[in-house]
């Protein structure tokens, strides 16, 4: 494959299956709108993860219907109408279980990689 761009561009896709967790985690700090979440994830991950608005906004709909988020239309600081998402109590529980699950698996992978190395 000659696609040199693939070599230079770093992969910024969110790791599969972690999108929900990242959204829930971000919202556990404060209610936010869609772009707010994307920006926060990008900043905190120092640009490692970039969110695609299609995936993000669809995921937000899904999480809302699952009962983990509540949504509300509010004004932003530059007085633009925006949909703000808040973590619900069940959402908080879901975040906890996903976080512990992730930690368990990530440390297992880390151990495996070390052993191989």
């Amino acid at each position, binding site marked *: 494959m000659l696609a040199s761009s693939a070599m230079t561009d770093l992969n910024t896709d969110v790791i599969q299956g972690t999108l929900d967790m990242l959204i829930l985690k971000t919202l556990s700090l404060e209610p936010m*709108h*869609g*772009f*707010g979440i*994307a*920006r926060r994830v990008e900043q905190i991950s120092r640009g490692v993860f*970039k969110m*695609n*608005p*299609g995936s993000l*906004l*669809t995921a937000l*709909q*899904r999480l*809302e*219907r*699952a*009962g983990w988020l509540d949504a509300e239309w509010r004004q*932003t600081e*530059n007085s*633009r*109408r*925006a*949909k703000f998402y808040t973590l619900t109590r*069940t959402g908080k529980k879901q975040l906890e279980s996903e976080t512990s699950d992730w930690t368990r698996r990530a440390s297992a992978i880390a151990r495996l990689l070390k052993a191989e190395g």
Partner: protein
Amino acid sequence: MSLWRQLTYGLRSLAHRTKRDRDVADEVEQYFEEAAAAWMARGLSVEEARRVARLEAGNMTVVKERVNSYGWENAARSFVGDLRFAARQLLKHPVFTATTTLTLALGIGANTAIFTVVQSILLAPLPYQNADRLAVLDTHWTNSGHTTPRVTGPDAVDVRDQARSMEAVSLYAGGDLGVQLRDHSVYTELIFVDANFGRVFSLQPIAGRLFTDADAHHAALVSEQFARDNFGSTQAALGQMLHVENEPLEITGVLPSTFDFPAKTQVWEASPLRPESESRTAFNYRAVGRLRPGVSFRSAQTELDGISRRLETAYPDANRNKRILALPLQQALTGDARPTLLLLWATVGLILLIACVNVTHLQLVRSMERRREIAIRKALGSSRWQVMQPVILEILLVSLIGGMAGVLLAFPAVRVLVAMAPRELPRADEIHLNGWVLAFTLGLAVLTALVSSMLPALRAAKVDPAEALKHDASRGMSRHGAVRFRDGLVIAEVAATFVLAMGAGLLLHTMMTLRSRDMGYRTRQLLVVDADAPAHSEQDAHRAVQQFNEVFAQLAAVPGVEHVGGIMGLPTGNYGSNGYYKTRGGLPVDLGHEASSIFNVASPGYFQAMGIPIKRGRDFSAQDTYESPFVAVISKSLAKQSFGNDDPVGKQIQCGLDSDKWMTVVGVVGDVRQESPAEQPGPALYMPMTQHPFYANQIHIVLRTGVKPLSLMNAVQEKIAEINPLIALRFTTMGAMVNKSIAAERFRAALISSFAGVGLLLAMLGVYGTVAYSVAQRTFEIGIRMAFGAEKSVILRTVLEHAAKLACCGIAAGLMLSLILARLVRGMLVGVRPMDPLSLGAAALLLLLTALAAAFAPGWKATHVDPRVALRAE
């Protein structure tokens, strides 16, 4: 919680589609604006910021669409869209739609109606507590294979005392009886039950209490209905007195109307736990029991077999070869109705199959017309499923509408069915449409849709675009395979209809045979009075007979009455007795094959009133009294059975009805069919009422009248009331009784015939459809033929010949099917063979005529094809 959200959010977004669209658009736009704003904050110009944002986040419209398409409601919406398309297509073809809907409504409606009956009677559990543990006891003889639903008192008591698998066993007896209230008497379903009855059924009276063994012969329970009718309310009935057979009974409790066992019982009289009959050969009782929890019928039977064996050893004479059976109550109640119901079910199944074939066929014809459309869609890249989907959806839609129409049809159909049903149909009051039936119908509609759309859909999927576009069906060049296939469907339909028509023919022929049969007596102009005079002691019984004799004399004087007689054991009546008898001077009898006969107790003049001929000797007379020598009259069959060609008059005969006295035969009378016209005439033994008073207080009085029998009702009632107002009375006619005795046969014949009619209608539609289609397709060919001078009659003949050929093939196939299926109805036929030539010929002719009639309209149209128009068409 989340499922609820899924549902409500989805529904909300379906209901407010534009609002959701706007919200999503707003949210996406806001996202892009913020993204651009963020870039501007880093120092890019407005233009550049927007460009970078787009570069990073992608096309805004694509994002909107993606976010918008989330949710189950979108899938639902596209399905609804497809359904709407199918509905529009159906509306565009009203004839196709109407025909298929009607076809399916008939098919599904008939099935829903019959399933309602089957479900309510055979499948639904009995409306009693622990209904699955309720059992009846039968007596079975292992040597003869005979089974009776009765038991002897001592046998049942042994089972009750010894069987550990039975929690409770209750004995009961009785039936139609006169009950005397304070100022009048009524005919009532009354049974004598012991105190265990309440335990077996876990009965809870709605007022008062159940009786105990100490209450025997002093207490009774009555039904809610009886309490209301006779005392005004359930509370008012408590403590009231009834008289049954001159015994005073106090009403201790009222049972709810939901309890109906044995069927239609109004009064349950307390009888002692220790049965009065101590004979092990008198089957005077019926028994119900309840199994212990967790005990199966199989293990209960194993225990009963052990008890039966022990009894056989203990009483080798009376209990030889006797085995006591425990059967589920539900099976015992509904067993007789089972074959009829299953036959009906099979019949409506066949109708549904015919309906399916019809729909398949109609849809095939339609998809032939659509070949070009399908070919184009395939050429443009539609997948197999996309081509099949409209076909399936159309039929699904039609099936659902047809199913709904079917349910609407089923409501009145069920009502008619219950009204027509013979009295013996068990649980008739419980028949109603319910959730199970609706689920069944829905399932049936979907199944019908799948079955009948399978072939057309597969055919649509197989269309080869190149081939189909080249091919032009309207020029009379349809592919041979397709034609043969459609013809095959019509043949199958005719064959199935033939089977139905044949079945209907057989049952109708049976009915005709039964109606025209000689009963051995004249059924017309005969008033029948059921009369029950209360009697308890021997004195009572003698007085009752005296009163009846007075009644006969008085009634003979009523204007319009020609002859009067009385009998216990009237043909098709409720009462009767039978058993073994012995003769002196008769033919020798094999051991173990004693001669048996029905036993009747009659008054002088009975034979004359009935029109039963006296062949030899004399009738009973007033001189035959309790004190004089005992006499008997026998039927011709009995004379032949026991005396061969000898003159039986003057010979001696003895039976175990109530006394061991030898009776002298004084006369021989003609044979009668005792139970119904379906029965063969058999031996009958008649004894005078005066000499057997214990069997003469519950009789039928028969009056041969010169006027309309029922017009004498009031006069007769007055006369009898003058003599004894406590005699309970009920009126009917002999004609009505005979009619009732063949109610089951009539019910079957009527239902199967109507179903055959429906089948015929469907077959007609099928033939019409196929012939009309082939004529339409051959318009071009017919035009050419006519242009070359073909006669109109020749054209018509070819069309009719085509239909006749299909019908004949169908009839031949149906004949073979009938050969196989005929044995299923053999048991329901009387005097008619399963391959009855009359029914066969009638069915064949009917189908042939139907096919020709169906083909005539399109044939006529073919003769009016204008060659100029036909050749120019396209």
